[in-house]
């Protein structure tokens, strides 16, 4: 090989590297980055509406005893199926209970179901999905078959089955919803893991002798779950819908607990004479589900700009 004279500007390169190090962190602190994220999210108008409404509902749920004018179970024989008035803004039901107060307390159950059932589904799904994606082979076949099996039953059927085996209560509802939805997260995380494991930092983690547990929980799952956050938000709406349907069928949370599904169901025979019994809890369900969907879509567009469709 012939000697060639090269004129590489080593000093220049060294300076460049120094400059580069100086610029580290110019993108801002964690707090600033969070601010940027929120600002990007805020560009998506509907997600602001969704987030705002959800925050409002959350505040109502937390402070329900302070906000509600009556106890949700307080019976008033003098005001049976009374229409909306100043004393009862949403009217009263067949037992004279204040619907306004019951809708407020119902938000507690709704949010509790959304967060807990999706939390369980998310954790189970992420772990099983990551295991399936990382190990492949038999583990993958077992997980995939399990997903297919749970998906063969609609959520309502699963709830019916569980409620008839166990007793219909809050735990059963949570279990049924988690059982139906974990597959969504498992599929998603599995797919992410399949592509992540081809990347060199995962191969490098293997090459430097990290244990499988460390690779899966410290490196694969944290990298794979970001898209799952979006789906969690979107599915929380679905979880509320399923929970409301189960309550409507009498298979969910049991009376006298204030649940929107139960209230909807209780008012259906009076829909022509006392519309307020069903309509207000129905509206509450619609608003919360819509808010989750708006927020979820906003998150999706912000986290993955490739999917951006300006609305």
């Amino acid at each position, binding site marked *: *090989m*012939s000697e*060639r004279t090269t004129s*590489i*500007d*080593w000093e220049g*390169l*060294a300076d460049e*590297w*120094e400059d*580069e*190090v*100086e610029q*580290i*962190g110019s*993108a801002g602190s964690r707090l600033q980055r969070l601010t940027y994220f929120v600002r990007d999210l805020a560009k998506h108008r509907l997600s602001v509406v969704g987030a705002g409404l959800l925050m409002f509902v959350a505040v109502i749920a937390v402070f329900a005893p302070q906000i509600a004018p009556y106890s949700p179970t307080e019976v008033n024989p003098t005001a049976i199926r009374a229409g909306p008035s100043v004393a009862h803004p949403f009217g009263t039901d067949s037992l004279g209970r204040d619907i306004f107060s019951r809708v407020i307390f119902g938000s507690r159950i709704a949010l509790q179901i959304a967060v807990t059932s999706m939390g369980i589904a998310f954790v189970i799904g992420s772990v099983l999905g990551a295991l399936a994606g990382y190990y*492949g*082979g038999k583990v993958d076949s077992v997980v995939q078959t399990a997903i297919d099996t749970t998906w063969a039953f609609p959520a309502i059927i699963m709830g019916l089955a569980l409620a008839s085996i166990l007793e219909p209560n809050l735990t059963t509802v949570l279990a049924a919803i988690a059982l139906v939805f974990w597959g969504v997260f498992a599929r998603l995380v599995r797919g992410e893991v399949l592509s992540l494991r081809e*990347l*060199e*930092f995962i*191969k*490098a*983690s*293997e*090459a*430097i*002798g*990290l*244990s499988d547990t460390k690779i899966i929980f*410290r*490196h694969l799952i*944290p*990298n794979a779950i970001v898209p799952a956050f979006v789906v969690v938000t979107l599915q929380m709406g679905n979880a509320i819908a399923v929970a409301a349907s189960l309550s409507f069928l009498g298979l969910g949370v049991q009376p006298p607990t204030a649940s929107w599904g139960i209230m909807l169901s209780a008012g259906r025979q009076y829909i022509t004479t006392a519309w307020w019994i069903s309509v207000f809890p129905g509206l509450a369900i619609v608003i919360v589900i819509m808010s989750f969907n708006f927020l979820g879509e906003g998150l999706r567009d912000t986290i993955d700009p490739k999917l951006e469709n300006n609305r």
Partner: protein
Amino acid sequence: MSDPVLEIRDLETAFDTSAGTVEALRGVNLTVGAGERVGLVGESGSGKSVTAQSILRLIDSPGEIANGSITLNGRDLLGLSSREMQQVRGRDVTMIFQDPSTSLDPVYSVRSQMVETIGHNRDVPDSEAEEIARNYLDLVDMPNPDRVLDSYPHELSGGMKQRVSIAMTLGFDPDLIIADEPTTALDVTVQKKVMEIFKDVISEEDLSVLWITHNLGVVAEFCDKVAVMYAGEIVEYGSVYDIFDRPTHPYTRELLRTIPNINRPAEELRVIEGSVPHMLDPPSGCAFHPRCPDAEPECRTMRPEQVDGDHHEASCLVHDATEQ
């Protein structure tokens, strides 16, 4: 010669596919001595990376090491349990990868990655691991190591990320580093600088390196010994001087001929006619005979003896390294 760090004997690795068995490695012999830098050169698909993965025992299913032995510091790696092998990875032998853009985990800061992995491989507390990390970042010529430690991978350029990977790898204090073309993804000036830094650190620490590359220029500059791979075999082994001054195997000669020369009048780039054989059905006899300019009739049927991988030797029926 002192005891070699790495000794590979008759290594055969095969992949059982639905189309048949792919013999990726067909009897590889290779020795890396203490403090030696050995270049493993070959075209894509010649089996370089499979050799590296075999040493670490990270061959993915359906691949399998079918035969042979791999000895690292006198320990037979193929006889170890997978738990013992996990201990070997990182502590005794470790690997630097090609693509710096994906070689660090994007969700953790450089500090937490370096502290985690160095602490894990050296059994030291976090504070000490951080000290080691800082020292090695300094050693790879990183200005302001503390600032780099605080950064996330996306804030660093390719050259910087690769130096972080190198510093991290060195921090494990391994006996052997396998480097899988760690500079290919960088632009040439950065490549040269990173190589220089790496070379300095290696000689300072007296490390053994197996450098996998298809770039003969890199080999000439960096390595003491060269193993030329073709179709899952090492066809020629020797010192850098042997290989560049007295190439024996026709494949090595053809490979050297393909290096563009600025002093040669403008002409088309030279290539080796034909392509790497498909390992599902390797040619009979010498695997290189269909492309070999010196092929004799017996090359079609007789398989030349494998090189031993400790002195200059070519696996060829026609040419003999000692003749020259």
